[in-house]
């Protein structure tokens, strides 16, 4: 837990440093019409760096040695995270409907070991229902790819 605490605080301090840098560029003082753009971010970043510094000290002094995440815990988390990231990546190119069909199908088969029949039925019907509800009924356009273009949408 201690290492994770230290890394997180360090990343946040780094982020605050970047904000500080930009705030100084924008001007942190008094402009012609009140405080300049960098005024508020400057103070946010300054307090953030100070607070994170204390958190680092706290973690060094009495951080728990228990691991942030064990291998047994991390495995199921990654099993959810990577397919989800894959789905988003595929959405970028093939649109949400195709991506969600592939994603649901893959996840059901790989994690749930459902029968191919159930996999096919759900991974096709869920995107179809999504299409009818969002595109047709609520008129909310979702990302589309070459497949939808081929169908004429």
């Amino acid at each position, binding site marked *: *837990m201690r290492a*994770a*605490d230290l890394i*997180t605080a360090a990343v*946040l301090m780094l*982020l605050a440093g970047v*904000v500080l840098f*930009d*705030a100084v560029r*924008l001007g942190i003082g*008094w*402009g012609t*019409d*009140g*405080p*300049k*753009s*960098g*005024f*508020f*971010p400057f103070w*946010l*970043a300054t*307090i*953030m760096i100070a*607070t*994170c510094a204390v*958190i680092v000290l*706290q973690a060094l002094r009495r951080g728990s040695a228990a691991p*942030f*995440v064990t291998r047994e*815990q*991390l495995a*199921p*988390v990654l099993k*959810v*995270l990577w*397919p*989800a*990231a894959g*789905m*988003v990546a595929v*959405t970028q190119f093939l649109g*949400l409907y195709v991506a*969600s069909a592939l*994603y*649901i199908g893959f*996840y*059901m088969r790989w*994690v*749930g*070991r459902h029968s191919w029949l159930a996999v096919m039925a*759900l991974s096709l019907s*869920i995107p179809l229902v*999504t299409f009818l509800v*969002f595109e047709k009924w*609520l008129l*909310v356009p*979702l*990302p589309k790819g070459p497949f939808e273009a081929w169908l004429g949408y």
Partner: protein
Amino acid sequence: MGIENIALGFQIAFEPFNLFVAVVGLSLGIIIGVLPGLGGANGVAILLPLTFRMPPNSAIILLTSLYWGALFGGAITSVLFNIPGEPWSVATTFDGYPMARKGQGGAALTGAFTSSFVGAFFSTVLITLFAPLLADVALKFGPPEIFSIQFLTFSAFVGLGGGNPLKSLVSILLGFILAAVGLDIVTGQLRMTFGIAELMTGFDFIVAVIGLFGIGEILLSVEEGLSFKGVGTGMNLRVVLDTWKVLPRYWRTFIRGCFIGFWMGFKPGGATPASFMSYSFAKRFSKNPEKFGKGELEGVVAPETAAHAAGVAAMLPMITLGIPGSPTAAVMLGGLIIWGLQPGPMLFVEKPDFVWGLIASMYTGNIIGVLMVLAFVPFFAAILRIPFAILTPLIVVVCAIGSYAVHNNMIDVWYMLIFGVLGYVFKKLDYPLAPLVLALVLGDLAENALRQSLIMSQGSLTIFATRPIAGIITAVALFFFVLPVLTPWWRRLRGRPSRGGVTTHD
């Protein structure tokens, strides 16, 4: 702008379309409350983009109904599956699940729903009475008062939030920093974009909520190893009526829960501590405290009354002051801004139909809600029998759709994933998420109030001390900020061992 407008409100709440919207919102809310990983804040965020084209009166009824539904739904999983769907239903599992194991699930659920309803109803009545008065006072507020109230809201997270106060502070600061990214509307300059076009639009709070609470929560729950071992509901009309005959016996617990809930609820992050506090009070004052934790109906009544009273009370500061008391209220506040309404006391003057329609819909929504859950519990409980490998991708797809629909932009879906990982890491390291979301929603409002105040005072911070109302509020806020430093010192002075409080964040 006074209470006489409640008739107008009921007229709006009883419009057929609005009643329909309430039923839709409640159904979705109960489903969302039942599903682990989807909560009230998250559900409201996903639905928000769909309300952009609705009339605001109906849109707010849809979102608040979803919130009431999520509050009801949390009780179902707590009692039947020992899985708290929401943080404030953790205390409900203590006695609800043992009751269900003993075959008294129906009684436990009836008790939970009835208490929820009583708590909500109590808070709604108080909101009806106090909202106009509070709004009247708030109308006299200028930028310094508004900023000091926002300051107070965040100080409450640091001082009363439990956990590590420094980490609460970091969450708040991070929220404000994320809110500042993009175009500065006052000077027209771009901030913290570093020439990257994608950063120009900034970070949307809806996407942040979906990522932090939706994806983050799923990652956390799979890590803990999800297993749904449900108990039958055992719900029928006879059980409901029999339980109702017993419930009046706990009138003291009801009253205590109502007051604790309302008092904790209108301060940020109140529902969860309120439910625990109510539970421990009920146990302390009970004639047979040893039965608590083994399936005592009173142990279900106490936390549910308080949690629901608090959940409803969180709406009070949102509609009167423009300050949300919970992450869900924060998302709704963001919704108000998107619908073109200015949150705060001016709503009572300019949009009485909106405010009173909302208040009246709290009555109708909770009445319809309690009837719906009593009648359809087995149906809603069946949702958790859907296999995990189907539920998980489904929730992720719904979250992705919600994020995309905000701006029709793929980058938001990527942000959602990043926020999901951030939510997972933050939750594990005990950084509270609610203040981050609140700061992200209130960022621009707070910064503008601060700037206007400083312009009024020619750059002097003393303006927050010298104006009477702002001065008092600022003093209280500063007290909350130093409270974590004072508390251990005070305990040592009184010779008590310092003890770690219950960490409660919603």
